[in-house]
């Protein structure tokens, strides 16, 4: 799960822009030629300062999203209905934490240390996907997250896996493979509620109504307001526009929701057959910015849990920090 969807950029970009001006024009041209040819950029390669900065931001926020995203679902492990659902949810949450590790590693290849990334998460400097600042109130919320949020993340991650930075692509390849299980188990649980008792169906409809807005927020503000430059598209850091990804998501998943007899809380939602694009009411973008800047229902709680884990795990990490060297034999 948990492609960044909308990845938040701090507005303090002036300094980097200066720095970008100092990139060697010859090296820059060679770099852009490589990307145009479809080559992957590897950690030791020369890259523009702005490319490095944007990728660290993107991959780091993706990693944080995987870690924080495990929290609303983790809550439900003890209360999952049935043994099989519990096993699947444990496996999924374990995968998400694993994805976080893979992504932190990919970001580290760009020169930011793991400790610095964790500190920036804990201090609120780095963001994570906005959807995880909402609570999972019922089991139906977990099925909506497992099905639709994962689906949205997959749209985003498949796009990014065709990007230009080698280590990120390799991590995403493995992540997308594991995601397919997450999506399937989410869809399965979703269908079970949708086709179940009237109470189950009502519970699912209620969760869907509450999550629809965060899902529409997931891919970020409309392209017309987007601050991300053509440069990021050209460098294959950003692989598809917010609106294109949102449209692709709606295209695949709205029919799957409707076929189960469920409704979506947007009277304007329909596909325009002549343009092939979806029409919908604009979600509340003021709310989106309010939540991403720390004022959502669960922002405080998510960070508190993460800080608690950091503090209470510290003695273990410290105890292991300086082990005596052990004698080793060649492996082969």
């Amino acid at each position, binding site marked *: 799960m948990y492609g960044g969807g909308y990845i938040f950029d701090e507005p303090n970009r002036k300094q980097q822009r200066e720095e970008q001006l100092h990139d060697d024009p010859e090296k820059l041209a060679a770099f852009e030629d490589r990307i145009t040819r479809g080559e992957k950029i590897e950690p030791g390669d020369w890259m523009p300062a702005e490319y490095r900065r944007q990728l660290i931001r993107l991959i780091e926020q993706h990693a944080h999203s995987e870690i924080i995203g495990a929290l609303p679902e983790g809550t439900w492990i*003890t209360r999952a209905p049935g043994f099989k659902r519990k096993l699947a949810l444990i496996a999924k949450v374990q995968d998400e934490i694993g994805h976080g590790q893979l992504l932190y590693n990919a970001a580290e290849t760009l020169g930011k240390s793991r400790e610095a990334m964790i500190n920036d998460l*804990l201090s609120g400097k780095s963001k994570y996907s906005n959807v995880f600042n909402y609570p999972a109130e019922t089991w139906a919320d977990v099925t909506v997250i497992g099905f639709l949020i994962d689906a949205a993340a997959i749209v985003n991650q498949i796009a990014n896996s065709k990007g230009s930075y080698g280590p990120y692509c390799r991590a995403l390849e493995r992540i997308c493979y594991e995601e397919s299980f997450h999506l399937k188990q989410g869809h399965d649980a979703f269908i079970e509620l949708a086709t179940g008792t009237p109470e189950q169906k009502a519970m699912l409809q209620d969760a869907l109504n509450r999550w629809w807005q965060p899902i529409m927020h997931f891919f970020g503000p409309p392209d017309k307001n987007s601050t991300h430059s053509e440069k990021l598209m050209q460098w294959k850091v950003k692989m598809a526009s917010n609106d294109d990804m949102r449209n692709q998501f709606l295209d695949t998943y709205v029919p799957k929701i409707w076929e189960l007899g469920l409704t979506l809380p947007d009277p304007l939602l329909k596909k325009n057959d002549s343009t092939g694009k979806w029409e919908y009411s604009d979600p509340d973008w003021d709310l989106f910015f309010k939540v991403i800047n720390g004022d959502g229902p669960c922002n405080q*709680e998510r960070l*508190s849990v993460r800080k608690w884990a*950091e503090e209470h795990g510290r003695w273990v990490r410290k105890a292991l920090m*300086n082990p005596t060297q052990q004698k*080793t034999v060649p492996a082969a």
Partner: protein
Amino acid sequence: MSESLDPRINRLKLGNAGEVIKVEEGENWQVYEVFHQEKRGAHHEHVGCVHAPDAQLALVFAKEQFGRRKKCVNLWVVRSADILAFDAEDEDMFANNIEKTYRDASGFKVMDKINKFKQAGKAAPQQ
């Protein structure tokens, strides 16, 4: 935060997220490269990295991270710092002559030569 929907949060009695927590440099140990072997006799293939305080624990983490799906019969870990590699910029030292048929069986057309020789009628009669 006592009104959390998460029973675990309420049990932990977490305070407000005000205190500053800072992870010190090096506290997340060091990086180990992980090599995964799918079956006995196969090559170990590089699959990624883990952070660990020593090689033994790196193996344990590697098992959790890279051995929980697909088949795996063994893993290697090696400190990333111990890996020696050429600089990416020196790539051109591997530039080479691509035409290498002279060191390949397909590069030698003996039958062509024999047939040409026979057609020229220069071969001695068999009987």
